[in-house]
């Protein structure tokens, strides 16, 4: 991936995270997700993972401690985050943006 096109900081969704770390040879989107995470890491960019995404990823009753490594930061969904999202990105705004850009609110691919 061209480092010039990489963002300084990116928050990844659960699906991207799972595809980047997992072994999913039949998933056509996995290589891109892995390449993206590798590129962000090797170019000292920041990857953010929201705590709810971490919750969605974890399967099992006794997971090991989440790594604290430079490059990937689990960010809390606390009251400050909730207020910021509610103020600046109410659902009506997100829907409007999704419609204007012909994308789904939750799927990464463009609608056909």
């Amino acid at each position, binding site marked *: 991936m061209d480092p010039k096109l990489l963002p300084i900081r990116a928050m990844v969704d659960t699906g991207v995270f799972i595809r980047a770390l*997992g072994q999913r040879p039949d998933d056509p989107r996995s290589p891109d997700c892995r390449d993206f995470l590798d590129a962000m890491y090797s170019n000292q960019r920041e990857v953010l993972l929201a705590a709810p995404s971490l919750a969605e990823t974890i399967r099992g009753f006794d997971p090991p401690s989440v790594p604290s490594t430079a490059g990937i930061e689990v960010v809390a969904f606390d009251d*400050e985050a909730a207020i910021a999202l509610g103020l600046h990105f109410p659902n009506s705004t997100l829907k409007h943006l999704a419609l204007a850009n012909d994308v789904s609110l939750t799927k990464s691919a463009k609608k056909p």
Partner: protein
Amino acid sequence: MSDKTKEDLSRRSDDLRLEIDGPGVHPETLDPLATLELGAAYLKLLKKIAEEARVDLEFKGLTVQDKCAALQFTPDNPARAEAVAVEAFELLEGGRLTPHVLESVLSGFRSAVNNLPSQQSVTVLVRSRKLPVRPAPVAKPEKRVSSTKLRAVVLQVGGKNPTVRFVSKSEGERPFTVSADKEQARELGALLFELVDAEVQLERNPDGVIAKGRLLKFTPVSAEKNLQAWTDWYKAAASEWDDVEDIEEELGRNDEEESRGVDA
């Protein structure tokens, strides 16, 4: 009584009036700019409420009545005007959470009310309703207490009752100080200017700035050169996902889209 008179009376009773009351208030003594701004702000509020409810509401005409002083407007749908005015009243009373899209027009109307001379009061009269516009309550700033996790650089450690000073991108690079116990202070002393993931209990001021806090625990951030630590974690904590064919289906993303009416 002629038909025209009956029609005039009927129309007037369906009109919406914004009444300004107070000592010496008459049409001749009104501040024209403040009054017109008040009327405009109120109509904008009503129209925005109607727009969000996806109903049409139009007003025609403007008369100034010599009843103290009242701005009078004729709605195209009196029943609808009444319903919208009642909703505006409930929002102004603060009994309902204000939708984001209405904050600006609500604030604009409140400002217009505040711009009137202090002894003047405003009442909305619509059909049989009398809806007083009360001055906006002065909100008592409340402290916000929460626990969270922040990635931060250790700037300073010390004090008889130990404190730690951090700086974090999550806080807009504003340094903040939290209390710590002696053991934590000793360990953090060896991590000056290093990154840690700090779990903290915080008190924020009404602007969201950290006022004070307490360090609960912390983990040094390791400067790994690759994703191995996360890959190993995934194998132990989440590898069941490798057997899931449709991740988004499993996460229920498609269900959310259907319920929201977003076309996938």
